[in-house]
């Protein structure tokens, strides 16, 4: 609503080099904190003084609720919930980043190509991504994972295939716009190759929105992995997996709600962390 266009040129004093980097708003900082917490938990899982995630303490089954021995209690097989949650972080924080990285690389490269080259390639790629995007993702997961088995590799692959079109669209649109910029014409005038123009002239300027989107995708992918586990088509047991933990204990919710609640809290906080990070990054990109 404010119109300060009149003074806008003045309001952007020349920024000192380097000070703009790594400055996040409050929300962004909280996001970083949460994500770092889980990353540390995942990294340190082997050296923390915890029972093994798959070891059953049958004695604790008498009263599986939180106690001094098992801070968050044990599950129906007597396994320590805290340990399984921390080891579960390891699972999510390996699968999700790999899957998102795959989707980003594939989506960004194809998006650059389609946006810069246009033509038939663009038509084919865009139509394909439209189809994948309109396909109910969860049904796709169900078909593929029940058909080929729910290995970590397959989970990474399906997530890559379903998330890449989103990044593709974003990068393609940005590339379309950026390739009209005059500096791209200037690069053509000095005889740069298409590859150089895409990677050196365009890609660095498309970085901002992509980074924000990667954070959002990490959040959604964490949810997706949880959902797969919950539906029973995620990583095969006894891998410690937050979604799977909820699945196994959900039936007992009226007796021992803690068994399902703690893994739910874990996954929710991690997703919130990623989303806050995205909010912070987006604000910075706008500022």
């Amino acid at each position, binding site marked *: 609503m404010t*119109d300060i266009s009149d003074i806008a040129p003045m309001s952007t004093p020349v920024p000192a080099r380097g000070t703009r980097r790594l400055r996040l708003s409050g929300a962004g900082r909280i996001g970083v904190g949460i994500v770092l917490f889980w990353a540390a938990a995942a990294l340190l899982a082997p050296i923390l003084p915890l029972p093994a995630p798959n070891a059953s303490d049958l004695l604790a089954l008498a009263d599986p609720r939180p106690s001094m021995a098992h801070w968050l209690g044990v599950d129906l097989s007597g396994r320590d919930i805290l340990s399984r949650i921390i080891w579960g972080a390891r699972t999510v924080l390996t699968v999700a980043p790999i899957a998102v990285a795959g989707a980003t690389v594939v989506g960004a490269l194809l998006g650059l190509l389609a946006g810069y080259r246009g033509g038939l390639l663009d038509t084919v790629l865009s139509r394909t991504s439209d*189809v994948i995007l309109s396909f109910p993702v969860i049904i796709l997961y169900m078909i593929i994972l029940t058909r080929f088995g729910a290995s970590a590799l397959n989970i990474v692959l399906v997530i890559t295939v379903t998330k890449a079109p989103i990044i593709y669209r974003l990068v393609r649109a940005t590339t379309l716009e950026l390739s009209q910029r005059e500096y791209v014409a200037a690069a053509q005038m000095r005889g740069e190759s298409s590859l150089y123009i895409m990677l050196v002239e365009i890609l660095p300027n498309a970085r901002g929105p992509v980074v924000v989107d990667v954070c959002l995708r990490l959040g959604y992918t964490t949810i997706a992995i949880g959902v797969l586990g919950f539906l029973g088509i995620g990583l095969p047991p006894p891998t410690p997996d937050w979604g799977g933990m909820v699945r196994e204990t959900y039936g007992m919710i009226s007796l021992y709600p803690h068994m399902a609640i703690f893994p*739910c809290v874990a996954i929710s906080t991690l997703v919130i962390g990623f989303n806050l990070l995205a909010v912070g990054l987006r604000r910075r990109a706008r500022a």
Partner: protein
Amino acid sequence: MLRYTARQLAYMALTLIGVSFAVFVLNEYAPGDVARKLLGAYATQEQVEHLTRELGLDRPVLVRYLEYAGRLLSGDLGQSLTFKVPVAEILWDRLSNTFLLAAVAFAVIVPVAILFGVLAGVREGSLGDHLILIGANFISSLPEFATGVFLASIFAVWLGWLPGTSPMTTGGGWSVAAQLVLPVLVIALYDVGYLIAMVRVSMASVMRQPFVRTAVLKGMSRPKVILRHALRNALIAPFTAILLQVNYLVAGVVVVETVFAYPGFGRMMLQAAMAKDIAVVEAGTLVAVLIAMTTQLLGDLAYRLLDPRIRLGR
């Protein structure tokens, strides 16, 4: 406009053919598999091969696909192995359950999303905006099964106000309406955050447009400016997104249906997929894709109708 619709319809038909072929191939390509599935693990290799021939499964994929497509077109969706009934029967039964859930959820989500999105976007950067934005972000960060667990723990286990499962039969002593409350709530919470953010962004960008200033400086009061000038513009962009939620509400609510043991379309698909009930999976997939593409098309058309810049051309 007509031309556009015709093109999109043709494109839709093409996609349906492609998808049905892909699903068919995915599920039935390896000929031995089907017979093995039917006969079980203890059948001999010979028996498997015999059945394969008998069923005509050794013929080329394309031929079998055409046969299959022919059957589909004549309305025969096949027989379900897990549910022991014709596919069509179980499909419509479960779909109608899901439609009920989707309709109620949609009726809750849309007004809430528009209300909060507009409230936040009208005063971008204000305290109210920050609170709504953070709240929207927070709820859309919670996976449906987590919200399901939290809400069921509170309302079903702790307070005992609502049923923890929704089998849609009145045997458990709970009315159908009561059984719908928690599933709808979980779906709405998960979905509404995204839509609020969407409406908010659009509203905020419209409020920054010079024509809003023009309206204010005409001497119009603020509420009137928002209702007459800003709202219509602000709802054009999110409209498509809102319509696309139908897609999610029908095909994407597997989790909620599983949490509350709701006999819906998604859970049917999950059971069928796990049991390798191919006929159900294939038919269900096609229905889901059909719904997805129809909403997409409707969204596109509505968008074109709402915006005179597109409707009337340059």
